[in-house]
C-alpha cells in the first residue's frame, strides 16, 4: 500500500484555486521531488499531504499510523521564546540525551545541544530541523524548500546527507523545490506543478557531461541533476529567466 495517496485533489487558498485535480502517490522508500514556480501550489500541496489543509475536492489517504517527519521552510516564532536545540528536538516527544547527541552528529551539527535556535545560521538551522524530523523515525520525510538560502556547495552537501539518511533509515522523501531545472539526482520521480501537474519524469543524470561541469563546477559530487520538462505549451513558465539565474 502507498504511504500517501492523493486522488483528484483540488486545493484552494482563500477563495482562489491554487491546485486542480492532482493525482499523486508516495511509495515506501522513494524520493519524489516536486518542483514549480512561486505560487504554483507546491507548499499548499505539501501541507495537504501532511494533513494541515483539507482539500476542496478529491481525497488524500495516509497509511494507518504513518509517521511523518516534516521539515518546514522556516519557523517564524517570536524572538521572546527562548529555545535551545536540545529542547527543540524533544518537542513534542521527549528524546534521550544520547539519541539527540548521535542524531546531531549524524546531520553534521554535533555538540549543538545548548545553542539557542535563534542563533543558528540558515544551514545549521536546516540540519537541526532535519534532525528533529529524523528522531521520529519517519516513514516519510517531507521537506519544504530545504535548500533555499544555501549556496551550491551547501545544496550539494544537503542533498548528499539526505540521500545517506534515506539509505540508512529507509524512509521515503518528498522534497519541494522552486528550482525548476536542477534537482536532487537520486530523485526517483520529479513532478512539475503549476496549478496542476504539468509533467512528471525522472531526472537526467548528466554529471559527466562537460556542459554540466561548466555549469556547476566539480564540487557537487553528482548530487544534482537536470530535469527535462516535457510540457505542452499551456503551462509554460519562464524558463529563460530561470536559466539566467543558474548561470549567474
Amino acid at each position: 500500500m502507498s504511504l500517501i495517496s492523493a486522488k483528484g485533489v483540488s486545493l484552494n487558498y482563500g477563495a482562489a484555486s491554487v491546485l486542480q485535480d492532482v493525482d499523486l502517490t508516495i511509495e515506501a522508500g522513494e524520493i519524489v521531488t516536486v518542483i514549480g514556480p512561486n505560487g504554483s501550489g507546491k507548499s499548499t500541496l505539501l501541507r495537504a499531504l501532511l494533513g494541515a489543509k483539507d482539500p476542496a475536492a478529491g481525497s488524500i489517504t495516509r497509511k494507518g499510523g504513518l509517521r511523518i517527519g516534516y521539515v518546514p521552510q522556516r519557523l517564524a516564532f517570536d524572538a521572546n521564546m527562548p529555545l535551545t536545540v536540545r529542547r527543540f528536538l524533544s518537542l513534542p516527544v521527549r528524546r534521550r540525551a544520547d539519541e539527540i547527541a548521535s542524531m546531531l552528529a549524524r546531520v553534521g551539527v554535533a555538540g549543538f545541544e545548548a545553542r539557542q535556535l535563534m542563533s543558528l545560521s540558515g544551514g545549521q538551522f536546516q540540519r537541526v530541523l532535519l534532525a528533529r524530523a529524523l528522531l521520529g523515525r519517519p516513514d516519510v520525510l517531507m521537506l519544504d524548500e530545504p535548500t533555499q538560502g544555501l549556496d551550491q556547495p551547501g545544496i550539494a552537501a544537503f542533498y548528499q546527507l539526505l540521500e545517506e539518511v534515506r539509505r540508512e533509515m529507509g524512509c521515503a522523501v518528498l522534497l519541494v523545490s522552486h528550482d525548476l531545472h536542477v534537482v536532487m539526482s537520486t530523485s526517483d520521480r520529479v513532478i512539475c506543478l503549476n496549478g496542476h501537474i504539468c509533467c512528471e519524469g525522472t531526472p537526467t543524470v548528466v554529471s559527466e557531461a562537460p556542459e554540466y561541469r561548466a555549469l556547476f563546477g566539480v564540487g557537487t559530487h553528482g548530487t544534482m541533476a537536470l530535469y527535462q520538462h516535457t510540457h505542452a505549451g499551456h503551462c509554460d513558465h519562464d524558463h529563460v529567466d530561470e536559466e539566467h539565474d543558474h548561470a549567474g
Partner: protein
Amino acid sequence: MLDDFLIRAMLAGVGLSLATGPLGAFVVWRRMAYFGDATAHAAILGVALALGASLPIYLGILLVALAMALVVSTLARRGHAMDTTLGVLAHSALALGLVAVSFLHGVRVDLTAFLFGDILAVSRGDLAVIWGGALLVLVGLVWRWAPLLTATLNEDLATASGLSPKREQLVLTLALAVVVAMSIKVVGALLIAAMLIIPAAAARGLVRTPEAMAIGAVLIGMVASVGGLLASLQWDTPAGPSIVVAAAVLFGVSAVFAKSR
C-alpha cells in the same frame, strides 16, 4: 491567620501568579497581548450580565470572557487583519460593559473595584475561587505543555506530529477565560493583561528554555504581588496598580541585568 486581610491579599496574588506565569509566557510567544486585553475588557460586560441576571459575578465574567475569547480566536484562525479587529473588540467590549452597568437600576456597583481590582477585600470564598482556578489552569497547561509549545512554534509541525493546533488553541482560550474571571478581584479588568505580559517579559532575558521562562514568570509575579501590596500599604497607594508597577520595576531590573550580561 486567614482573618488577616493582608495575608489573604498576598495569597490571592501568589495564587494568581501560578496561572498568569505560564499562560503569560504563551501570550507573549503567540503575540496574544491584544487578545488578552479583549478578553479581560469583556469582564465588565460579564459583571453587568451577572448583576442583571442575578448570577454569581464569577460565573457571569467566566461566560462572557469565554464567549469573547472564542470569538477572537475564531477570527484569528480565519486570518483577519487581527490588530485592528482586536482593538475594536477590546475597546468596544469595555465601553459596552460600562454602558450596560449603567442600565442596572437599584444595584449600586462599585465600578472601580472591577476596573482596578479590590485585592484588600478578598474573602475566603474569593481565595477558594482564585486558587481553584489557578490550579486548574496550571494543571491544564502542564498537561498540554509539549503540544502547546510545538503548536506555538509552527502549526504544520504540530500537525505532522499528530497534534491538533486547533485543540491546543482551545486550551489556551479556556485558560485565558478562567484567568480573567479569577483575577478581576486582584488587579481588575484593565490590568489583567499586564499581569500576563509583564512577568513573562521580565523573565525572558534571564532564561534559556521555555520552561524556565514560565517558572521565572511565576516567581516574578509572586514577588510583584507581595512587593506591590507592601508598597501600597507603606505609601497608601491603590493595591492592584501597585502590584503592576512592582512587576514593571522587576521588568526594568531584569532588562538592565540581561543587557549587562
